[in-house]
């Protein structure tokens, strides 16, 4: 028995292809779903093959396209805004003790607070407007970027800064040449997590506030018990979030190559 376990653990699928293990995982999930669907376990679980064939039709429908565009518009405004501001505030918080003291409390509150609790307030403030959407997405993403960036800044060894100072570096040069490159890997991890959360924020916002976009469509199909169409929307949102996070991962990998983890210290 133990012999068998050992030889199993020796098989390394990633040696064959890095894509193989996730594909096998997906296949097992799809088969299990298909079986559950054929057995009619629940009406919310139609057979997987039915959903897949329907998904393509939904994705090509006019309703889906205009809804997706609306969702993307909110993302396109809120994402750069919150990432940009998050990086700057994170840098300031990680670098300057006074800023950290002032803002740390807010960051921690917003990270632990269920943001749904804030939605009535946002509604009262901005109504059923796009501003509400942007605020919601912002709240979902901004603080994650702040926390990770400031952790990244603090992870830069003081040795490097001291070395730079010994060559007469001013604060601007220390920031640009030492702190920012040193903080980059952790900051980018924050950006990646925040990117995933931005999709969450958009859908939740659209469901609760605006009833437009993919979130609005989800509400409508849900209310009409259009289960198969509902799954098509969920796949679309899940897939695009995944792709967006992978894109950030590519940037991360590039930075990581330049800055291998564990080599960041001066040995």
């Amino acid at each position, binding site marked *: 028995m133990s012999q068998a376990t050992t030889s199993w653990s020796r098989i390394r699928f990633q040696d064959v292809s890095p894509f193989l293990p996730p594909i096998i995982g997906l296949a097992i999930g799809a088969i299990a779903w298909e079986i559950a669907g054929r057995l009619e376990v629940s009406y919310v679980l139609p057979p997987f093959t039915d959903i897949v064939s329907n998904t393509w039709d939904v994705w090509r429908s006019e309703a889906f396209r205009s809804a997706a565009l609306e969702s993307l518009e909110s993302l396109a405004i809120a994402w750069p805004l919150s990432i940009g501001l998050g990086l700057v505030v994170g840098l300031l918080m990680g670098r300057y003790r006074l800023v950290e003291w002032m803002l740390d409390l807010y960051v921690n509150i917003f990270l632990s607070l269920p943001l749904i609790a804030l939605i009535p307030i946002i509604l009262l403030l901005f109504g059923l407007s796009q501003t509400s959407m942007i605020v919601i997405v912002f709240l979902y993403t901004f603080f994650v970027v702040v926390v990770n960036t400031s952790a990244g800044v603090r992870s830069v060894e003081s*040795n*490097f800064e*001291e*070395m*730079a*100072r*010994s*060559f*007469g*570096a001013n604060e601007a*040069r220390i920031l640009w*040449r*030492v702190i920012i*490159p*040193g903080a980059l890997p952790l900051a980018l991890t924050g950006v990646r997590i925040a990117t995933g959360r931005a999709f969450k924020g958009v859908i939740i916002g659209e469901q609760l506030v605006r009833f437009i976009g993919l979130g609005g469509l989800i509400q409508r199909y849900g209310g009409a018990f259009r289960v198969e169409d509902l799954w098509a929307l969920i796949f679309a949102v899940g897939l695009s979030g995944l792709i967006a996070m992978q894109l950030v991962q590519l940037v991360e990998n590039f930075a990581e190559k*330049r*800055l*291998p983890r564990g*080599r*960041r*210290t*001066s*040995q």
Partner: protein
Amino acid sequence: MIELKGITKTFRQRDGSAFHALKDVDLKVLDGEFLSIIGPSGCGKTTLMRMVGGLAKADAGEIFIDGRRVNGPGPERAIVFQNFVLLPWVDVTSNVTFGLEMRGLSKKEARKTAQKEIERVGLTGFEGHYPHELSGGMQQRVGLARALAVNPEILLMDEPFASVDAQTRQILQDDLIRIWQEERKTVIFITHSMEEAVYLSDRVAVMERGPGRISELFDIHLPRPRDYSSRNDVEFTSLTTHIWGLLKTAYEKDGDVPSDD
């Protein structure tokens, strides 16, 4: 000339009592002189060097360089660090140009000087390598090239060869002597090794701890240029033996004291 006058530094220990890292240290280092400071852990030798470098402040006392008071880092000084402190995210060339760039030169201007220093420390062909691709000895060559690139009058070296193996250390010492001989910069060299101190230096300052102070200063009259056979010189053996005697006493006097290096 570097002058240290009455340098005192006290640290508050965990139990609340004062630890005299340095007490009333006076020292003069002449232009073009190679001076080593040797002493047991916790004698404040690294703190002293950091003060000359402008990275640490004394509680009392003053440091003058050519009559000007030291208030911080300055263009006439450059430090070679014990742990190299190379930026891991840039290659050898960019590490060497770093000091010049911090002083306001453009990368393009800095490159030419950097290339000259990279050749001088024997790293030609490694310009595009990243620090983690280099051995410890080569990394310290980058550290040395970075310091030399800003053309300082004074080179401050904090146990620069402490973390490389014995053979590499020997080679680095010889290369350092060769480079020093070319330009005769003033060098303050912190070390734990009496052989290294005697082999390299014009003078050796021996420190003791509790309180940290300079207990003895030796002139080294070994003829230059020196090479490995200088170690067979009678003066070399008698001096290293004598310094070891002093250090041994210091080590035996008290076992465990806070270390600043």
